[in-house]
């Protein structure tokens, strides 16, 4: 009798461990679909890796300034002087002599941004296929449905970021400042960025009935967010109007933390401030999407 009482949920409220299991169950459903299709994972990795290869290797600023192409006719400036001049230019512009490393950290944020943007898509499909309605007939808290989607986006993007980091290291990213702590700090920042961006796109998807709109919004925002950040180029070298955007872009904050931690580049704003900004960004958007889920997901 006691046992029967326990396994039938009469008041419709889940205890804390049961709440977390239901949340994980929802997250895991989407994750299972993801790792069941490794081809999609590979395809989504191609883009940042191509960027790394194209920009990082072909736009070889190091060669530009330190190679033999750089001299003034008539003046026979010794190569070593030129090299140190070039390195100073690079140091002053990028904060490091390795543009490839500079870009690699940007690519970590890139993959997180792009993956998180897709996290709303599955809600649209769940709604279309009736799965969302089925979920809503269970006593699972409405917020968990949303948090499950957000966590799914975050986990996917962090796993992809790890792969991009490994590839970047294999392609010659500078390892002088890399340590377990610096990687943890970087991924802490990436987590917050992923959480905030996933929340934003899950929020947009909550009311949307077709995935085309969702896709269009993601496409509208992804490249501007990327280029209006310090991913490819330092903000200080941008025109002022671009700087204004780049300076509030959470992508910039994330990358700054990553470059500070992984490459030892010095910035004027302390890392803690960047973390605070990202934390507020993630918390506010996360909270809004939970509150919206109570409103929207009741029918």
């Amino acid at each position, binding site marked *: 009798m006691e046992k029967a009482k326990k396994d039938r*949920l009469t008041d419709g409220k889940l205890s804390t461990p049961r709440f977390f299991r239901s949340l*994980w169950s929802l997250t895991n459903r989407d994750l299972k679909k993801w790792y069941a299709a490794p081809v999609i994972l590979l395809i989504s990795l191609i883009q940042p890796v191509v960027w790394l290869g194209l920009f990082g290797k072909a736009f070889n600023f190091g060669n530009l300034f330190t190679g033999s192409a750089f001299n003034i006719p008539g003046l026979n400036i010794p190569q070593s002087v030129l090299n140190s001049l070039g390195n100073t230019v690079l140091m002053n512009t990028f904060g490091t002599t390795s543009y490839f490393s500079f870009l690699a950290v940007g690519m970590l944020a890139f993959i997180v941004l792009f993956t998180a943007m897709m996290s709303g898509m599955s809600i649209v499909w769940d709604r279309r296929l009736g799965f969302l309605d089925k979920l809503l007939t269970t006593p699972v808290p409405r917020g968990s449905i949303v948090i499950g989607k957000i966590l799914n986006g975050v986990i996917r993007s962090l796993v992809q970021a790890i792969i991009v980091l490994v590839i970047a290291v294999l392609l010659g990213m500078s390892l002088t400042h890399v340590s377990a702590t610096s990687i943890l700090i970087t991924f802490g920042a990436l987590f917050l960025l992923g959480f905030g961006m996933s929340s934003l796109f899950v929020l947009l998807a909550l009311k949307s009935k077709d995935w085309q709109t969702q896709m269009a919004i993601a496409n509208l925002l992804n490249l501007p967010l990327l280029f209006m950040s310090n991913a490819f180029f330092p903000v200080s070298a941008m025109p002022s109007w671009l700087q204004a955007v780049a300076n509030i872009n959470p992508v910039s904050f994330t990358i700054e933390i990553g470059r500070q931690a992984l490459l030892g580049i010095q910035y004027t704003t302390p890392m803690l401030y960047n973390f605070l900004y990202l934390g507020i960004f993630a918390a506010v958007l996360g909270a809004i999407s939970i509150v919206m889920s109570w409103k929207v997901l009741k029918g």
Partner: protein
Amino acid sequence: MDIIRVRNLSKVYNGKVKAVNKISFYVEEGEIFGFLGPNGAGKTTTIKMLTTLVEPTTGDAEVFGHSIIKEQNKVRASVGVVPQEFTADEDLTGFDNALMMADLYGIPRKISKQRIVELMKLVDLEAAMKRKVGTYSGGMRRRLELAIGLVNHPRVLFLDEPTLGLDVQTRTAVWNYIKKMKNDYNMTIFMTTHYLEEADSLCDRIAIIDHGKIIKIDSPDKLKASIGGDIIKLAVNDERADLKSTLKKVAGVKTVKRNGGEYRLKVKSAETAAPKLIELIDSKGYKVTKLSMTRPTLDEVYLEYTGRSLREEDSSSSDLMAQRRTMRISRS
């Protein structure tokens, strides 16, 4: 005891479309109660309101004593829902789908794993439960949905068009599973359908619903009896001859309708009236070329009460799209 009590329940969409218009009814514990009506009559909206997916515009309902407006979570915990669509995730196995739903109900894994195996046995999916749902046939998927709907051992099960799109053979099999489930788990079932045979063979009581209103509630037998008698259709070789008044004089004939050489008669008993009719027509020098006798079906009941056939459809495009998707999967 009434397990569902509905009072003046209405749903108005966009301030003007009355999907459900002040319906009131009750469902007794242990019965199979069916909503019969065409697409767009308000069946699915009613189910969605009773399962807390859609908030009613006016009125209230109690499911197992819990208000669908004020005690949504209690309602959710005590009911099982099998929606019209196939909602199981195609990329997961049948077992994993059920396990996830059990998690959402907060059922401990130790209990749920055992329970799912039991339920899979009940619907004969034990051998297939570790396979991805994408490989299932339409009938298997419907059975899986039924099993998943029972994962929280609900006291009331809501079935929305449980055999939509299935072929006749599979449909009969699904009916048998539903009956078995009802007996094994001692449940009350609320179902909607637009298949008359389904309402007839499964339901203890039927509510005929049309344009958001309940027109009649009764058992299938009483509904059929209420329109009175059997139907004889016959054809006579001479299309110009009007035998209407002649045929009407035969004992037991209630009404006669003529369409050219074809006649449709409502009679008290087809077996006794038919020979007399043939004899009479012969004696007038004509020949009966075709003859059929039918007991009243729910189709005729439906026609009688709503003035239209069940085949006429009127539904929103997204509903129709969802329905077509269901039918397509059913036939796979």
